[in-house]
């Protein structure tokens, strides 16, 4: 059965026919974590949990997901049960269970501990800082500070009939109602990248090399990504990675554009070879494009996928997703036609765009030889202003170590400085500040850089954090509970200092 379109209570519905006696439905809203700010990060996820709060009745299967631009509430079971449950969920938007917020906050904390941040999320956080897609690296950051007054406007703005789509893998069941408040479709907002000098590189996390570029959406992007991934794997297999290792192609929509990325999990020793393989493959493809055989194979892959039974089941969801994201919605047949029309020069053009916006993350200590055109460690520190006061570390270091860090607080900046390095944050541009009740403060800049100040470690530490807090806009301050006294960091003692000095002098690896 081909894809069909209808509407119920103002909600656009895409449906097909799976032939199963079980109905699967997804109520999808055009809102995701990339629409949030750092001080509201997690509000969409919290709403998703609360809309599905409680035990689903009977044998219904219920799940929810919050992605960068979409939030999906999924239910499957007997059609009558699905109809009843969707109605309950829609009513909850108007009768929102604020009383269960603390309960779901705890569940979300457990979920966050289980999941962590993906490699692609880290790459997006570097490219975009703490806005838009960059929030992938800061998932649910503000969830502990969300209050009903910050949740309500979000609900009213995004969880409306006009901003939702329902997908079904069967015909629209009799009696289906979707009593959502009315409201318009909310367009996606293309995120703005930090001002890098591309191609750029920086040291990220151990064991993984990530290369991403920004390209306009289109069929050539998928083909380029797959050929690129295949060439990188072929180049590395047997030299750097084993057959169990994955070279992954990842993409994330940024409005009408995509962030396309290659992720390779490697040991630290293989990082330089991996970076070389990624760039050489990309350069080759950008120069002459893929071979005819490569392109034909990839188009065949798309054709086979778009005519499979699995695609038929997933088609309403795929079309709905593109429709909500403001992209051209196309069915399987149109997809195959579009992909078949892609020429090698189109793929080469995509690869050139990736080159022009290339950002790579390599493990710390990666050999940089042969990568002279990359701009490394792109930190955009503001210039520190005249310090009003300098704060020194407690303990022996301040007396005996020449490289003891200091914090210099100015009227609009705070700098952490050693003779070798300096890191400055502009206080008016702090995106969020986590301030514990015991004074511990973490400042997050709009670029995603962080500075943590523990008053227990600094002379006049309490004054320092109070002065910093006074210079911040109240809207960015997120108050957190104190940590237990035993977990508070303490300055090193003379004995610890002595042991460290002896060790570093003897230069023996520490067990």
């Amino acid at each position: 059965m081909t894809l069909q379109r209808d509407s119920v209570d103002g909600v656009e519905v895409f449906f097909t026919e799976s032939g199963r006696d079980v109905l699967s439905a997804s109520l999808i809203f055009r809102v995701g974590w990339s629409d949030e700010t750092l001080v509201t990060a997690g509000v969409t996820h919290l709403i998703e949990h609360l809309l599905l709060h409680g035990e689903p009745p009977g044998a219904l299967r219920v799940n929810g997901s919050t992605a960068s631009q979409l939030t999906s509430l999924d239910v499957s079971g007997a059609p009558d049960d699905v109809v009843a449950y969707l109605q309950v969920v829609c009513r909850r938007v108007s009768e929102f269970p604020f009383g269960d917020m603390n309960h779901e906050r705890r569940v979300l904390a457990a979920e966050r501990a289980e999941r962590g941040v993906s490699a692609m999320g880290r790459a997006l956080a570097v490219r975009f800082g703490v806005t838009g897609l960059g929030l992938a690296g800061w998932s649910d950051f503000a969830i502990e500070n969300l209050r009903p007054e910050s949740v309500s406007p979000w609900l009213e703005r995004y969880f409306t009939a006009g901003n939702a789509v329902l997908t079904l893998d069967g015909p629209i069941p009799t009696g289906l109602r979707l009593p959502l408040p009315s409201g318009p479709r909310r367009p996606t907002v293309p995120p703005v990248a930090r001002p890098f000098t591309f191609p750029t590189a920086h040291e990220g996390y151990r064991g993984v090399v990530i290369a991403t570029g920004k390209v306009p959406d289109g069929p050539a992007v998928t083909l380029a990504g797959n050929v690129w991934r295949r060439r990188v794997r072929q180049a590395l297999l047997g030299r750097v990675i084993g057959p169990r290792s994955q070279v992954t192609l990842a993409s994330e929509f940024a409005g009408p554009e995509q962030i396309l990325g290659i992720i390779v999990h490697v040991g630290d020793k293989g990082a330089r070879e991996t970076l070389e393989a990624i760039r050489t493959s990309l350069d080759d493809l950008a120069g002459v494009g893929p071979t005819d055989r490569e392109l034909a194979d990839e188009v065949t892959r798309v054709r086979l996928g778009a005519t499979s039974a699995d695609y038929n089941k997933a088609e309403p969801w795929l079309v709905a997703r593109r429709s909500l994201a403001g992209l051209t919605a196309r069915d399987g047949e149109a997809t195959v036609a579009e992909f078949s029309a892609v020429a090698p020069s189109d793929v080469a053009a995509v690869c050139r765009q990736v080159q022009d916006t290339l950002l790579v993350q390599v493990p710390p200590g990666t050999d940089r030889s042969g990568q002279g055109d990359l701009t490394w460690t792109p930190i955009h520190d503001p210039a520190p202003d005249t310090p009003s006061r300098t704060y020194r570390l407690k303990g022996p270091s301040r007396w005996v170590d020449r490289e003891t860090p200091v914090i210099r607080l100015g009227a609009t900046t705070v700098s952490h400085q050693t003779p070798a390095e300096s890191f400055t944050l502009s206080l008016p541009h702090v995106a969020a500040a986590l301030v514990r009740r015991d004074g511990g403060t973490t400042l997050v800049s709009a670029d995603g850089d962080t500075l943590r100040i523990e008053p227990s470690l600094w002379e006049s530490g309490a004054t320092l954090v109070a002065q910093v807090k006074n210079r911040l806009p109240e809207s960015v301050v997120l108050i957190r509970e104190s940590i237990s006294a035993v977990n508070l960091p303490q300055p090193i003692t003379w004995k610890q200092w002595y042991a460290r000095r002896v060790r570093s002098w003897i230069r023996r690896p520490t067990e």
Partner: protein
Amino acid sequence: MEPDEETGVFATPSPDKIVAMAAPDPVRVDGVAVFCGTAEPDALQRVSLIVRAGAADETLPTAGTIELLGLYVTEIDAPPYVSVGMSLDHYFLTIDVAAPPEDLKDILAAITARMRAPDPEELCALASLIADDDVAAANPVVEALTYRYGATGPGLQSYRGMGLAAFNVATALDVARRAFARDNVVVVSEAPLPSDLSIELAAGSRWVAADPVPLALDFPVGYPHSSSGEIILSATAPHGAASLVASRVLTARVVTALRHELGMVYSPHTIRIPFVHHDLIGVQTDVPDQYADTAVKKIFDAVQALAAWGPNEEELAAEVISMARQVTSGSTRSLPWVQGRQFLADEPPQTQDDLLAELQTVTPEQVQRVIDAMIDTAMLGVPGKTKTNVAALNWDRGPEDPRIGGRRYDPRKGLYRPGTMDVPVYFVSLDGRQLYRGAQHGTTVTFDEVAAMFAWRDGARRLIRPDGYAIPVEPSLVTRGHELIQTIDAAVPSERVIWQPPREPDAIPQSPSALERVLLRAPLTLAVGTLLTSLVLLVLALPGAVGQGTARELTLFIPMLAMFALNVFWSKSESGYSGYHQPSAGPSLTHPAMRGPQAEKEGGDDAAA
């Protein structure tokens, strides 16, 4: 079943016909059993070769060989739109193919050609690559299996691939010859296969699948595992639908209690690992460490409530309906996989009706009996740092064997803070047959009985007992360490030694040098030195004290006294000095047998500490 003469494909039975088949017989192609589903041929048709050879069939010295063979046979030259992959579980190696129907014949021929005649050089190269691959991180289910079964059968997953470091190509070729025999392989497909299919494999017999034998533990057992934030309750139950339903009902109750009522956890889920006549079942949940104690109590409350009163009709019906939907919605395509595995395990292949009937006849009493029986074989794994305790469990904590006599090997000087209890001491028994590690109580291994010994070129050894417990030996941390290693090497049968790749220099622990010991133990050394110097100076100063210059000599003496006081204060102070090794502390580390892949990789709890 015969191929259709006109279309060249095997006749597709109607769903009614499949349902009517009580015990479907497979089609034979070149002597290999083939199970085909009734799905309409798709653009990409899923086909698998299932081999009755799994991780549980290996021994420690060969651990990883079957996975290696699986990876080897999938390395065929295929177009990118064809997917070829493999998976390995305890009993089966499965080679999965998704390809256009017209390509299947060539793809399967390429795979079976590699099965028939593996290239020794390619195998060696692949083994070297895989041995360098990262080993999976600690996994609560894998640890549960090792605690239950030791270093054999399903417990071997903790040592995934460790045998490949000492890869022996002759052994691998022998395993390939026996595993890839036509009676030991089935082909399963979601849709009919081409009639001119060729599956040429050598003759050979079916591998016998036997239930793994658990260690003689004092069930129910509690143990600390190395996965922070996870709780896992596992038990064995008779193979069948009642066990699966019981574990799902239990999981649903845990979800209700821990997520919906208390909001402590995110996603409890059911565990089911099928063996031959019994399954390992249970529930696993994430949990923040601060809630672990409450979570354990709630899980046990759920078990005891189900054991006492069984499930109610509604919850049983919900699980049965949910599972029945899975059977009816997916079986058209997946039933051949179920049947193929049953066939290889010498069980009668079931039809969709059989599966549904088995589910629908599960009663509350059956579920209650399964849960009741679970308690007799229950193991509860909790994060090592939590203080969880359940009175009903026997906690697998602390030392076990009493110390044996024999030749003693102490830790090197300066490794541990003076007065530290539980400093690991090694003893080799007088008859040279056993090695003991511990203080008053620890672990003893009998050399003749080791399952395997991992050996590093830098001298480190790790002796694995059949029950999975291990004794690590770092010669650089033991007095006469190299003599101890020579003794061990001479006593352990050479065929059980598995050489490991070289360790990074930073990963090799070293005892502190004499200079470092002196400097780091300055409190004592400097104090004594200062006192002696002061006494000498005092004696030298005495004549002057009697005569002139007393004040000058006293001026010299007073700073010395002050240094002495300072050093005494230094040595008494609690803060600071961190030059000592910390002896293992806490339930997962007091035992020198911390079991788990990470511990094995890191070469012992000395390093971990």
